[in-house]
């Protein structure tokens, strides 16, 4: 296919094959994580500490579902069928972070997804704001505009809980569990997958640079809220033994069946069947 700039790809089939596969996997990972993160936000609409926080969860859920829809639709260009992606895959084909495998039962754990995982997804999207894959360009802007408020929500709550000893302790525990999976989500430092994307100009950063950008965004919040999160330090050596590079997550586990049925809309579709 034709390129509009010397370095721009107008459609997926213009991309080098290895970059095409890597980008498809990357977009699917973003879409799946956003789809399920939206569920996790949505599960707190009625249980959040205040009415306003519940409304914010509802709004963030809708944002994430919208972003996932946009990303699944983009995958049509890669010869995926969005309908199949959204409604027909088993749990082990979802590329979601292990942090999203189960519903979140404690508010600080939701705040960890909000500040840490949601920001990781945004850092990855930001690395594509000047992508050589042109169809993604105008989609990233709306998405990142909405994400600005997700980050502020996570930050505002970190400061709120950071105000009290008990809040600080609960939040530290939740963040410390979530930091490792978020840092690993960007991929191994030597990831061939990421290198293909950088070489083709699809993304402007390799996995170590993405980790650096994520830390740069998150660390000031830890400081502001008076939190000690040693797991986020640059000297921390990440472990990769149990890493599933294809699913970009810990090898063990998958999305829970109840959530799976809900995101696929199994019940709704059974009512429409003859």
């Amino acid at each position: 296919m034709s390129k509009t700039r010397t370095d721009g790809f107008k459609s997926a089939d213009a991309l080098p094959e290895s970059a095409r596969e890597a980008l498809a996997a990357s977009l699917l990972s973003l879409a799946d994580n956003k789809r399920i993160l939206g569920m996790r936000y949505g599960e707190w609409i009625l249980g959040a500490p205040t009415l306003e926080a519940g409304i914010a969860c509802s709004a963030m859920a809708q944002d994430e579902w919208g972003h996932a829809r946009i990303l699944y639709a983009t995958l049509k260009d890669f010869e995926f069928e969005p309908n199949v992606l959204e409604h027909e895959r088993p749990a082990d084909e979802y590329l979601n972070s292990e942090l999203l495998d189960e519903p979140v039962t404690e508010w600080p754990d939701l705040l960890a997804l909000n500040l840490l995982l949601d920001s990781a997804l945004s850092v990855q999207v930001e690395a594509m704001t000047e992508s050589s894959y042109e169809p993604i360009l105008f989609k990233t802007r709306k998405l990142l505009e909405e994400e600005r408020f997700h980050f502020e929500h996570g930050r505002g709550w970190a400061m709120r809980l950071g105000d009290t000893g008990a809040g600080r302790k609960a939040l530290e525990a939740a963040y410390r569990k979530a930091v490792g999976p978020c840092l690993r989500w960007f991929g191994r430092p030597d990831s061939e997958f990421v290198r293909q994307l950088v070489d083709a100009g699809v993304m402007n950063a390799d996995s170590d640079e993405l980790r650096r950008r994520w830390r740069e965004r998150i660390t000031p919040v830890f400081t502001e809220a008076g939190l000690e999160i040693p797991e986020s330090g640059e000297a921390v050596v990440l472990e990769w033994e149990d890493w599933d590079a294809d699913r970009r997550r810990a090898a063990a586990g998958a999305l829970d069946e109840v959530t799976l049925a809900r995101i696929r809309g199994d019940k709704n579709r059974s009512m429409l069947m003859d």
Partner: protein
Amino acid sequence: MGHLSGERLYEIFARQKREDRLEHIGTVSAPNPELARVYAWKTYDEATWFEMVVAPRDAFRSVNRNEVPFTLHPAETA
């Protein structure tokens, strides 16, 4: 409004067009200005706002009346 300790009321003002005047559109309860901004934006999303600002209710000073707390909505005096 859910009211936790440490929360304050914030008044929200917005305008849809640059040439409009800022109008009072509502109130949120929030523990800090950062969350007040998020709550205001996400709660009052019925329009595409050109500008939205928030201020803590207790930052307002009555000029001509003695009643406290300050109210922007007559209905809230009940």
